[in-house]
């Protein structure tokens, strides 16, 4: 039988990393995700698996430590919350440019600026539209439960190494702080340097005599060559879009109206569906699990079969833009959100879909 624990979302991230055979964590404290670093420091994985845990001097340093570790072919990750993730954007752009795999966890809080420490989903644009400079993408996973916080660490590393690109776990303060049941996986062993050389021949582990040296860089001063690099990276993103789209549907089969929501909002919407269905409303939920690549194709199909879609987000309306692009005008699309760290209540969401799509109560 699988080991079962009641854990906070943040703790689940840390435990998952240890058990996945992660080589290192580098991070800087910020609410509401400091438990990730605290848990790792308390667990002392360096004594059990050899995993390194280091409190860096800033998020800027953290992401660059991740850059250095990833460039050695190591499984490394960092975590932060919104303002800290903003500080990491330079490093993330470099990592995408240098094609380095890593997992980054954003336990989102309300912004802009120092904002609030309460949960928010206002970092959607930053996550899926680039965030830093240049043409690149972060593969973005959006967990909606503590179990998914746990599962997406291993999945994140798998995808990151498959495409040599950073993977972002876009969570929020509610999922980070809440406790739910988690089924834990077996302890994996960390790769040896020899195994890394074998699996990832690009890793900088020291030049093997007689072989070509490895260079990790995002620099190409000749534009013609830089364009080729970019075209190759873009081709990789097309592969990601083909292979990695993930989503979940709840009661969309007969739904006349569909909520589109991820993470905490999707949980609220599930309650709204319970309440609405009890009143005879035919409503369902489409939950994108990957925000990039966005499940546009499936949303487009559903749009042809329903009377309207409501994008429910704890933001002023960010994902709704991608929903509209996906729908291509086939159905009515509206947005409902609360801002600044307020979580909408299930009743508010029901009221919103009635008002915005069903022509009032």
């Amino acid at each position, binding site marked *: 039988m699988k080991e079962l624990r*009641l854990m906070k979302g943040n703790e689940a991230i840390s435990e998952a990393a240890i058990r996945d055979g992660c080589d290192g964590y580098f991070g800087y404290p910020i*609410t*509401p995700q400091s438990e990730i670093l605290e848990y790792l420091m308390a667990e002392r994985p360096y004594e059990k698996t050899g995993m390194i845990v280091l409190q860096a001097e800033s998020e800027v340093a953290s992401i660059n430590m991740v850059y250095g570790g990833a460039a050695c072919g190591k499984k490394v990750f960092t975590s932060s919350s919104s303002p800290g993730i903003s500080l990491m954007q330079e490093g993330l752009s470099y990592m995408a440019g240098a094609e380095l795999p890593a997992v980054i966890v954003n336990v989102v809080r309300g912004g802009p600026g120092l904002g609030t420490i*309460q949960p928010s989903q206002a970092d959607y644009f930053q996550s899926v539209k680039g965030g830093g400079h240049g043409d690149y993408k972060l593969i973005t996973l959006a967990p909606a439960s503590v179990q998914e916080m746990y599962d997406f660490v291993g999945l994140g590393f798998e995808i990151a190494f498959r495409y040599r690109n950073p993977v972002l776990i876009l969570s929020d303060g*509610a999922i980070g*702080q809440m406790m739910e049941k988690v089924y834990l996986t077996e302890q994996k062993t960390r790769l040896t340097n020899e195994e890394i050389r074998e699996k990832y021949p690009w890793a900088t582990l020291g030049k093997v005599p007689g072989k070509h040296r490895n260079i990790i860089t995002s620099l190409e001063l000749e534009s013609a060559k830089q364009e080729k690099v970019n075209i190759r990276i873009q081709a990789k993103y097309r592969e990601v879009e083909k292979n990695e789209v993930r989503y979940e549907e709840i009661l969309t089969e007969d739904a006349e109206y569909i909520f589109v929501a991820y993470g905490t909002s999707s949980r609220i919407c*599930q309650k709204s569906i319970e309440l609405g269905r009890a009143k005879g409303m035919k409503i369902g939920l489409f939950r994108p699990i990957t925000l990039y690549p966005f499940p546009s194709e499936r949303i487009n199909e559903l749009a042809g079969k329903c009377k309207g879609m409501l994008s429910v987000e704890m933001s002023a309306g960010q994902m709704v833009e991608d929903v509209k692009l996906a729908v291509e005008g086939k159905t009515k699309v509206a947005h409902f959100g609360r801002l600044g760290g307020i*979580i909408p*209540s299930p009743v*508010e969401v029901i009221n919103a879909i009635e008002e915005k799509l069903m022509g009032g109560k």
Partner: protein
Amino acid sequence: MTEEIIIAGFGGQGVLSMGKILAYSGVMEDKEVSWMPSYGPEMRGGTANVTVIISDERISSPILSTYDTAIILNQQSMDKFEPMIKSGGLLLYDGNGITRHPVRKDINIFRVDAADESARIGLSKVFNMIVLGGFLKLKPIIGPEFIHKGLEKSLPKRHHGMIPENERAIEKGKEIVYALQEIA
């Protein structure tokens, strides 16, 4: 069975740990659970609350606007959560420090004067377990053997010597809880 509970009081009253013990006991009985705390500066000396859901089915939202049960340990929480109890639901409170008592006519109202009792028996540390006992008397949604396992899982090993004391406090709570208003 789905039980949606809010536990609310001051930081330091053991609100979050009571919720955790309840949730962990639910896990031990193979139920679905969620534990969603209020977090942040308001915890430091201010009000603290936690939403605990225990269910036989997959839990939808861990954040709620109405509750089956509200366990209330201070006045601010009474003012905030009394109106959010579902009609026919349960309000359980400790009368210590309560100046405005509940007024709703459509809910069951019970008191468990755990603060007085824990002071009387000189065990302020198990105050929250007395409250929990009161709740379990009224809604025995989890068996005592699973509460025992929940205590084992929730408390760090070095505190396991205190489990019998906690269980006695739960029993005490079951004894002293009493009804103020019972609706049909």
